[in-house]
C-alpha cells in the first residue's frame, strides 16, 4: 500500500478530530467526522437470506483471558469486534475505510473543547447489555476506571492522559477518576478530561481495552468468565482448553451498521487444541470454516494451488521481531544487540514464514506504508534502504568486541510450527555467533504474558506486533517507551525493557507535534525509529501478510485493515 495513503488516513482522522473540536455535535446520530460521514456507502445492507447457521472456527490454542479490557491478542480482539463496543469504533468494513473511526455507543463523534483536552460524548439511547440491563453513563465511567483497576496492558500508554490516571496507575485497586471521566445521567453525556491534548485519543477509544462493560463487573481480570456484551454476540461458554462458544446477544438491536453491524451466523464455535495441520485439513474438508493460525509450511503450496479460491491473502501493518532484554546479559551490551541485528538473515525468516508472497524482510519497527515509516535499513550488508543480506562477519566481530561470546542465551517462542522453526533458526544463528543458545517453546496461551514478565528472565523472545490503530506511536511509544516497561508485571509490553529518557522525551514531542502538524510529527517518528534501531533493543524480522483460509460454504469475506477478517459478517448459509 502506498505510503501516502496511510498518511492520508491518519491525517484525515486527525483533521476530523481537530475540526470536531470547533464544531457542535448534534444528537442525531450523524457524525461530525468528515471521513466517517462520507464512508457510509461502504456498509452493505444486511442480507437476511444468509442469516443463520453456525460458524466453526479453529485455533491451536486459546488466547487467555476473555476480559476485553485485559486481553491484548489479535486472536480475541478480532472476536471482540462482534461482542463489545466502546464509545467509538473503527468502521467495520473491508479495505482502507476500516481505519476510520465512527461513533459507536456514542451517538456522534465527541465534542472536543478546552484546547483538545475535553471530550464530551452523548450516549445512544436504548442500548442494552446481554444481561438485560440498560447501558448508562455510570457503566461508561466505571469502565474507564476498570481499565486501571484490572491493570489493562495499555492503561499506562493509551489512557494515562486522563486526569487522575497517574494516581490510578499507582494504586489501581482504589482507582477513581472524579475529574477525569464524569457522567451526566440526565443529559446522557460522558465527559473525558485529558491532562494534555491527544490526537490519537479517538483511536484509543475505539480499541477493545476501552470497551464498555457493566458497572458491576469485577474489578479484576474476569478470566474465563465472560462479561456481558453490547454487540451482536455474547460468550455462552469458554474453556481455554477446549472451546469458546458465541451465541447471539438476545438484547442486541443494530444501531449503526458501520459501527456495529448485526452478524450473520446464529452461533460461532471456536475450538482449541487441534494441531495446525489438522486445522488445515478440517477447513479443506468443510469441518471448520476458518483457522486462526498461520497454515504450516508444508500445506501452503496445496492451499495456494488446489484451494486457491478459499485463500485470502492480505498485507498487514505488523512486524515479527525478536526482543533483546537490554537489562540482562548478554544483551545489556549494545554491541551484542547490534550483532544480532547484523546477523539475522531476514530472507531466511521470510522463507520460514512461507515465502516472499507471505512476508517481506523488515528493517524498521514501523512497517512499510505506515505513518512515519522511512525506507532505511541500518543492518544490511552494504547499507541501503531495503534489506539485502546479513553480515555475519561483522556480527561475529561485534560479539567478539562485546566480550559476550560463550554466554548462555534462552530463546522463548510459541510452540506452533512457524514460531518454532524461526526459533530454531535463531538458535542456530546464535550458536554460530558463539553463544550457548537454548530454545524454549511455550504454548501460545502463555508465551505472550510469560515473555513480558521480568521475573521470568527472558533474554530473547520471538513475538509479533500488529497495530492497534494506524499511528506511529502505537509501535514506538507502546512497545518501547519507559511507561510500557513494568517490571514484575505480566502486562509489560516493552518486552526488551528499553527505557531511554531522551527517546521518551522525543516521543512526547512527536505526540505534541501530531496535534498540529501530522507530517512533521511523522518525520519525527521516522527519525525516532532509526535512532531506536541504532540502540537495537529489538530485531525486526519480517512484515507478514495474512492468509485467511476459509471453507467453501463461507461467504461475504471482508478484511478490515484494522481488525482483520470480520468474523460476524461471514455467512455460512
Amino acid at each position, binding site marked *: 500500500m502506498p505510503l501516502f495513503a496511510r498518511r492520508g488516513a491518519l491525517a484525515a482522522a486527525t483533521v476530523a478530530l481537530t475540526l470536531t473540536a470547533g464544531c457542535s455535535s448534534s444528537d442525531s446520530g450523524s457524525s461530525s467526522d468528515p471521513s466517517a460521514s462520507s464512508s457510509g456507502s461502504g456498509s452493505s445492507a444486511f442480507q437476511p437470506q444468509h442469516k443463520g447457521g453456525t460458524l466453526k472456527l479453529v485455533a491451536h490454542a486459546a488466547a487467555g483471558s476473555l476480559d476485553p479490557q485485559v486481553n491484548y491478542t489479535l486472536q480475541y480482539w478480532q472476536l471482540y469486534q462482534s461482542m463489545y463496543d466502546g464509545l467509538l469504533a473503527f468502521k467495520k468494513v473491508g479495505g482502507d475505510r476500516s481505519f476510520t473511526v465512527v461513533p459507536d455507543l456514542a451517538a456522534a463523534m465527541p465534542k472536543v473543547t478546552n484546547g483538545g483536552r475535553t471530550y464530551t460524548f452523548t450516549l445512544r439511547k436504548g442500548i442494552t447489555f446481554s444481561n438485560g440491563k440498560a447501558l448508562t453513563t455510570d457503566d461508561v465511567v466505571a469502565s474507564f476506571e476498570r481499565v486501571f483497576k484490572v491493570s489493562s496492558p495499555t492503561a499506562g500508554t493509551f489512557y494515562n492522559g486522563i486526569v487522575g490516571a497517574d494516581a490510578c496507575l499507582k494504586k489501581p485497586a482504589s482507582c477513581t477518576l472524579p475529574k477525569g471521566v464524569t457522567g451526566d445521567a440526565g443529559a446522557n453525556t460522558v465527559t473525558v478530561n485529558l491532562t494534555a491534548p491527544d490526537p490519537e485519543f479517538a483511536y484509543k477509544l475505539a480499541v477493545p481495552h476501552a470497551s464498555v462493560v457493566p458497572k458491576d463487573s469485577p474489578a479484576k481480570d474476569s478470566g474465563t468468565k465472560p462479561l456481558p456484551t453490547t454487540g451482536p454476540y455474547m460468550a455462552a461458554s469458554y474453556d481455554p482448553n477446549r472451546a469458546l462458544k458465541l451465541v447471539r446477544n438476545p438484547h442486541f438491536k443494530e444501531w449503526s451498521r458501520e459501527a456495529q453491524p448485526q452478524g450473520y451466523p446464529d452461533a460461532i464455535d471456536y475450538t482449541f487444541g487441534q494441531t495446525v495441520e489438522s486445522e488445515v485439513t478440517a477447513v479443506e474438508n468443510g469441518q471448520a470454516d476458518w483457522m486462526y493460525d498461520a497454515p504450516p*509450511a508444508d500445506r501452503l503450496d496445496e492451499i495456494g494451488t488446489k484451494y486457491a479460491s478459499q485463500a485470502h491473502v492480505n498485507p498487514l501493518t505488523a512486524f515479527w521481531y525478536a526482543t533483546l532484554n537490554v537489562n540482562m546479559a548478554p544483551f545489556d551490551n549494545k554491541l551484542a544487540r547490534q550483532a544480532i541485528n547484523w546477523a539475522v538473515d531476514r530472507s531466511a525468516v521470510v522463507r*520460514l514464514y512461507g515465502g516472499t508472497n507471505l512476508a517481506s524482510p523488515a528493517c524498521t519497527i514501523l512497517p512499510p506504508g505506515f505513518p512515519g515509516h522511512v525506507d532505511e535499513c541500518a543492518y544490511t550488508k552494504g547499507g541501503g534502504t531495503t534489506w539485502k543480506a546479513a553480515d555475519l562477519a561483522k556480527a561475529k566481530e561485534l560479539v567478539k568486541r562485546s566480550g559476550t561470546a560463550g554466554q548462555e542465551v534462552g530463546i522463548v517462542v510459541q510452540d506452533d510450527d512457524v514460531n518454532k522453526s524461526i526459533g530454531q533458526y535463531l538458535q542456530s544463528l546464535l550458536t554460530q555467533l558463539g553463544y550457548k543458545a537454548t530454545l524454549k517453546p511455550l504454548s501460545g496461551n502463555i508465551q505472550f504474558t510469560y515473555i513480558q514478565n521480568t521475573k521470568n528472565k527472558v533474554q530473547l523472545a520471538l513475538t509479533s506486533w500488529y497495530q492497534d490503530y494506524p499511528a506511529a506511536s502505537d509501535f514506538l511509544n507502546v512497545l518501547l517507551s519507559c511507561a510500557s516497561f513494568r517490571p514484575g508485571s505480566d502486562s509489560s509490553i516493552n518486552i526488551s525493557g528499553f527505557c531511554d529518557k531522551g527517546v521518551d522525551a522525543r516521543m512526547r514531542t512527536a505526540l505534541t507535534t501530531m496535534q498540529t502538524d501530522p507530517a512533521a510529527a511523522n518525520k519525527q517518528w521516522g527519525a525516532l525509529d532509526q535512532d531506536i534501531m541504532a540502540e537495537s533493543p529489538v530485531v525486526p524480522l519480517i512484515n507478514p501478510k495474512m492468509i485467511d483460509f476459509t471453507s467453501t460454504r463461507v461467504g461475504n469475506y471482508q478484511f478490515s485493515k484494522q481488525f482483520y477478517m470480520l468474523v460476524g459478517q461471514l455467512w455460512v448459509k
Partner: protein
Amino acid sequence: MTSAPTPGTRRPPGPWRTAAADLLRNRPAMAAAAVLLFVVLASLCAPLYADHIAHTDPFQSHVSGTTVVDGRTVPVLTPSSTGLGLGVTPIGPTWDPAHYFLGADNQGRDVMARLLYGGRTSLFIGVTAALLTCVLGTAVGVVAGYAGGVVDAVISRILDVIWAFPVYLLAICLSVVLLTDGLRLGPLRVDAGSLWLPVTIIAAIYVPYIARPLRGQVLVLRNKEYIQAAVGSGAATPRILRREVLPNVVPTAIVFVPLMTALAMLTESALSFLSVGVQPPDASWGTIIQDGLGLLYTRPAVTVAPGLLIALTTAALNVLGDGVRDTLDPGARLRGGV
C-alpha cells in the same frame, strides 16, 4: 579331593563360553546383531559422512543455502511458483550422498547427516540408560531381597510408588520440570540441555522393572542351602552378595540389557518427539521425527526414515534380547519369558 587334569584331555568350556557359543548358533539373534552392528557403525561414522561426504553441518540452519542437483545449483528451500505462490518446500531426496541424500528438513539441514548423528544420540541414550537401569535395578533388587525386613519394605514401597505412575507420564513430568533448570541432587549436577538428563530420567523410571524381578530372585536365593551354609560359616554379607548372590542374578540382568535398551530408545524417541527429551540443536531420531511432522505432506522421508530406523533397531534389540535370554536362562523360554 581334586585331581589335576589329565594331559591330552580338553577342559570343559565355562558357562560364559558355552553361552557365547549358543548365541553364535542362534541365527535370528546373529542377524539382529548384524543389523545393530551396522546401525552402530553407521552412526559412529556420522562426522565422517557430514564432514567429508556431505560437507555440511547438520546442526546449523541452511535456510537460504543452495545445493547442486544434476549439475544445477538449486535452493535448499524452494519457494512455490504455482497458484498463489505460497509456501516453501525443502529439497527432497536426491539419492546423491554428497548433496542431500535424503533431502532437507525445514531448516535446510541434511536429513541423512542428522539421521546418523541422531542415531549416535538415540543409541547413546538407549544403551547408557539401559545399563544404568540394570546396574541400579540390580543393586536395589539385591539389597531389598537379601536384607529383607524394614529395608525391603521401604525399598519395595518406593518401587511400588514409581511403578504406580504410567511410565511415559512420569517421564514427561520429570522432563518438563528438569528441563527448566537441570538436575541438582547433591553432587549430581546435570545441565538442562545435556544428554545425561534424558539418560537419568529414563534410567530412573525403569528401575522398578529390573529391581522387582531381581528382588524376587534374591528372596528365593537367600533360602538356598549354599547361601545358608555361607551364612552359617560366618561369611560376611558383602562377600556372600559378591560371591554367591550376584553371580546368580547377573545373567538375568544381562538378559534385560538389550530389552531395556530397546525400551529406553523408544522412550527417548517419544520424549524427544514431545520436545521434552533431547533438546535442539542436538538431534535424535525422535527430534527428527518431530522436525518432519510439519513436512509430512511434502517431504515424508524426514519422518519416515528415522521412524524406520527406530523400528528396525528396537526390533533387532528385541530379537537379540530373546537370543541372550534363551542362552543365559533357558528355563525362561519354558516359563514364557523373563
